C-alpha cells in the first residue's frame, strides 16, 4: 500500500472524530491526532479500533502507546501488515 493510499484511508477513519476542520483539510503524515485534529482522547481508542477493523490487524498495547500521530499510525499499520 502506498503512503498516499494509507493517508487517504486514515483520513476516512478519523473524519468522524475530528474537531478541527482546518487541521483535517491540511492532514499530512506530520499531523498529530490530538493537537492538530483536536480529536478527543477518549475517541483515540475509536480511531485505533477502526484501524484494527479496516486493516484486519491487532494493535497491541505497546503500539497503541505511540499512536498519537498520522506518521506513527502509518508505521504501525505497515509493520502489522508485513507481519501477517
Amino acid at each position, binding site marked *: 500500500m502506498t503512503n498516499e493510499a494509507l493517508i487517504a484511508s486514515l483520513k476516512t477513519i478519523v473524519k468522524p472524530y475530528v474537531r478541527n476542520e482546518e487541521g483535517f483539510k491540511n492532514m499530512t503524515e506530520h499531523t498529530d491526532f490530538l493537537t492538530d485534529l483536536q480529536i478527543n482522547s*477518549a*475517541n483515540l481508542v475509536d480511531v485505533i*479500533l477502526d484501524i484494527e477493523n479496516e486493516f484486519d490487524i491487532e494493535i497491541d*498495547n505497546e503500539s497503541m*502507546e505511540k*499512536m*498519537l500521530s498520522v506518521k506513527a499510525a502509518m508505521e504501525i499499520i505497515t509493520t502489522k501488515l508485513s507481519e501477517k
Partner: protein
Amino acid sequence: MTGNDIVDLASAASESHWKRKGFLEKLFTAEEQRYIRSAASPELIVWRMWTMKESAYKIYTQQHGGRFFAPQKFNCRILSTILGEVIFREHIYQTQTQCTAEYVYSIAGVKALGLNPFLNTCFTVSGHSYPATANFVYQKIIADYARATDQKKTNYTLAKDRNYVPFLYNKADRYCIPISITHHGRYAAFTIN
C-alpha cells in the same frame, strides 16, 4: 501540582460507544472491567475511571514529560463515591471526582502532597466550533486567575510547552505557572496550584 479531566455525559453518549467491542479492553485493566460490568451505573464508572486516568496522566507528563497513550497502565482504585487512587509505575495519585447528572469531573494530585489547588473551577462553554471554544476557555482562565491574584489580565498569556502541556505565563515578571485544563462538550475546567 494538580491534573484534571472532565467528561460531558451528553457529548460522551453521542460521541463514544463504550459498549463497542474492544473499547473497555483497550482502556481498562481486567480488574477495572470487572468493576465496571458489575456496577449499578456502568457508564458512570467508565467515565469516572477514564477521568481519573486522564487527570493522573496529566500530572505525570507535567512532572516527567513525554507523551503516550497507555490508559491501561494507570490503575484505578475507587475508595468512595468521591475519592480514589491511580497507580502508574511507582507513582501513586490521589483523586477526587464530582459526578453530576451533566458531567463527571476528576482532579488528581501526588498522594503524598494531598489535593489542595489554589483554583479549581468548572464552567460552561458556549459554542461548539474550534478554535472559538478554545479561545473562550483560555480567556476565562486568564480572567479568573488575574482576578484571584489581583493582577491585570494583560499580564498573562496562555501557552503550551513542547509536550503540549499548558502553562500561564506572566509577561511582566516573566515566570510560568503550571496549569491543567480540560474541555469536553458544554463544560470546561482548570486547576492551578
